[in-house]
């Protein structure tokens, strides 16, 4: 409870300091937080801005698509490499090396391949979200205690049963951490993709507002995006904590 109180206090203090600093300065560059709610309300009717609802909806769809694909690809490749030792030993260093490259360098080529529309945003979200998932699966497989596999085998468990009743639960907490990180990164990928070049989506609107020097609107949108990422990650954290409690 005290932790929560402190967090709230820090948040309130942050906005108070921001307000105090911004108040005497040029309102075009130094936006006062007290002006943000009004800006948000007005934004739905600002004629210069594209209709916000549609863009938010599009971005959410892109995020969902990117995350679903990142999870599918991450789990598939993770189990493929993790369960087949030789294949894993061939490809794992490659994967780690690719992960070390800042993913944004691939974005121009994604735009070339997938165009300016949603596909390139989804592709970038997949690219970012995929790595933590595949790496967590690989780490999870390595963490499965050999004794527990032997216990199940000694009781007559066949490979698929060992996988379902021993490996999956033993990997659960590691894997769920990767899935959570993957979600956050998929969101980042889609938003960054939209900001870097697009014709629709919340990132596009942010860029648009910024380009027209509508700094108040820009600030509101940026904060909203941040809040949305935080909310998603908090939901992820709750799921992760629950799984970890269960899997010990």
């Amino acid at each position: 409870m005290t932790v929560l109180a402190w967090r709230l206090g820090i948040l309130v203090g942050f906005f108070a300091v921001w307000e105090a600093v911004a108040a005497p300065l040029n309102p075009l560059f130094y936006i006062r937080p007290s002006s943000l709610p009004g800006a948000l309300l007005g934004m739905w009717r600002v004629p210069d801005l594209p209709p916000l609802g549609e863009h938010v909806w599009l971005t959410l769809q892109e995020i969902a698509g990117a995350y679903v694909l990142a999870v599918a690809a991450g789990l598939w490749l993770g189990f493929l490499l993790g369960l087949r030792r030789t294949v894993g030993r061939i490809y794992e260093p490659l994967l780690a090396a690719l992960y070390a490259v800042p993913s944004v360098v691939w974005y121009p080529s994604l735009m070339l391949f997938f165009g300016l529309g949603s596909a390139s945003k989804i592709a970038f979200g997949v690219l970012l979200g995929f790595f933590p998932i595949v790496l967590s699966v690989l780490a999870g497989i390595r963490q499965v205690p050999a004794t527990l596999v032997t216990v199940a085998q000694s009781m007559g468990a066949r490979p698929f049963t060992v996988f379902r009743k021993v490996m999956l639960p033993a990997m659960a907490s590691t894997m769920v951490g990767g899935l959570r990180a993957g979600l956050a990164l998929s969101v980042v990928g889609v938003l960054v993709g939209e900001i870097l070049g697009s014709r629709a989506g919340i990132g596009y609107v942010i860029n648009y507002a910024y380009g027209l020097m509508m700094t108040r609107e820009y600030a509101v949108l940026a904060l909203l995006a941040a809040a949305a990422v935080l909310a998603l990650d908090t939901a992820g954290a709750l799921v992760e904590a629950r799984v970890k409690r269960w899997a010990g």
Partner: protein
Amino acid sequence: MPGGATTAAADPIILEAIGKRYETASGAVQAVDSVSLTVRAEEFVTLLGPSGCGKSTVLGMIAGLVRPDAGRVLVAGTPCAGPNPEQVALVFQDGGLFPWRTALDNVTFGLELRGVPAAKRREIALGLLEPMGLRGFERKYPRELSGGMRQRVAIARALALDTPILLMDEPFGALDEQTRLLMGEWLVGIRRRARKAVVFVTHSLQEAIALSDRIVVMTARPGRIKDVLDVTLPFPRDLNAPEVTELRAKLWEQVREESLKAMGTIS
């Protein structure tokens, strides 16, 4: 204890000159070499020897988890080809409980694999846990139990399979001395009711003397049988009786020799 005249077909475990080599980075290691042993029905046999003498490997071969590269393992008269959960149940060194399952669900695991209906599984598991003093702990996870409790759950999990053979690999190795002695006393009580052939691996003389009908002393690597001692003292055994002291001295002499050899090969 049944006499030595039982027919071969009735003997639950027969080891015929089994051997096992492991390939390691520093060359091949002969872990077990021509071990021959017959365990009779309801007999409690202890494999005693220094660490790394291949005791656990012998157990693994009986369980069908390790394939011998020489000799034969017969379980219930049939050559052993892989795990045989109808005949053999195992208790592992560190318990090997599934941390994500409650005590109860750990005990029911093997029954689940057998396809026993849920209500029946529960009934069997509770019937085992209660007399073990684990009533009220069925819903606890392994991390919430003491070391002795965890080990009892592991034993209950093996007993749930209701096999004629029980293999125990240093089941009390991780416990403190007092708990270990108490668990030994408890096991003496259990085994008389359970009517199983037990092969028990330990490096504790005390434990071997307290529990066994026969003690098989193994040599340092490669693991061979050095000596077999019958222990005919009645249960429960008074560990301070003069016969026990004498037996312990005799065992110690043999184990000491092998432990020294084992230390020699380590350094």
